[in-house]
């Protein structure tokens, strides 16, 4: 099953969802409208033998003023991986969660929320997974600034002068 066959099959079933192909090298991606992502993935899982969600991650494109969620659907039967990308607005990005279809999405979506701030509607427990609960900001965004202090501990190695590191002075 080639990429083109998959594209044609999805286009036939969901004409309004498939927004086009991203002609990237070496692998192309399918652009899917965010509103229809759950039905597309459900169709791929039930009818096209894409049994597993390989990966779900966020992307941040400040030049396009967009953020993106990339889904990698894996098929054991066809030995293939297909990438679906859903573009969202950069501020207030929200998309439907696919936890009802794949349990892997539970933690993967939590990580995309933690790192990019993308909200997943319908997720049972959307909270931070890697950073602490009281962390401010979404680290993998391109405009993220490392905080100066966290709970009283200095975060960077030095503030302005590389010769003056915020050295250790812990007391007993």
């Amino acid at each position, binding site marked *: 099953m080639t990429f083109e066959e998959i594209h044609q099959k999805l286009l036939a079933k969901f004409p309004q969802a498939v927004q086009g192909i991203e002609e990237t090298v070496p692998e192309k991606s399918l652009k899917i409208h965010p509103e229809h992502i759950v039905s597309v993935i459900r169709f791929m899982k039930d009818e096209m033998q894409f049994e597993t969600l390989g990966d779900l991650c966020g992307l941040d494109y400040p030049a396009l003023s967009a953020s993106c969620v990339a889904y990698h659907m894996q098929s054991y039967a066809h030995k293939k991986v297909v990438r679906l990308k859903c573009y969202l607005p950069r501020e207030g990005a929200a998309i439907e969660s696919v936890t009802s279809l794949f349990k892997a999405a539970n933690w993967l979506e939590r990580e995309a929320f933690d790192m990019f701030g993308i909200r997943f509607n319908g997720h049972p427990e959307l909270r931070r997974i890697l950073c*602490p609960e009281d962390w401010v900001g979404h*680290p993998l965004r391109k405009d993220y600034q*490392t905080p100066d202090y966290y709970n009283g*501990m200095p*975060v*960077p190695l030095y503030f302005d002068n590389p010769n003056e590191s*915020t050295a*250790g*002075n812990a*007391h007993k």
Partner: protein
Amino acid sequence: MIPSDSVVMTSVDEVLSWGRRNSLWPLTFGLACCAIEMMATGASDYDLERFGCGVFRATPRQADLMIVAGTVTLKMASRIRTLYEQMPEPKWVISMGSCSNKGGPYWHEGYHVLKGVDRVVPVDVYVPGCPPRPETLLEAVMMLQKKIRVQESSMGLLGSLRKQV
């Protein structure tokens, strides 16, 4: 120490210092890759047990040496302080590896990495390396033993008791 045939004369604080430095029980506190080298030091090829660090205690209440082996993250830092405070006196800390010395390879963009464990606990010996070889960790333990001998003998019994209070 004045050894004779069947009697040895010494001072109390020398005996205390000898006992303390030759039976440093470490806390199992491996965080990341350096933990694997710490386990290798404790295994058969580079035996740590012959230095007295026989049993790695799982609870801080029974340990007197904390080897911070691995990257310290901001989420983990408060737990390290709690564990340090739960250890009874006298206690020592070895910072193993460049991550716990000064942040290691994650010093530049690590928004979640604490650049050195000496920001939360006072460190006695720093071990460089990424990860340090087991022989380096053994040298660090020997250096700590020397430090204990010098410190305790210079302060005397009253001095070390006063330090604990």
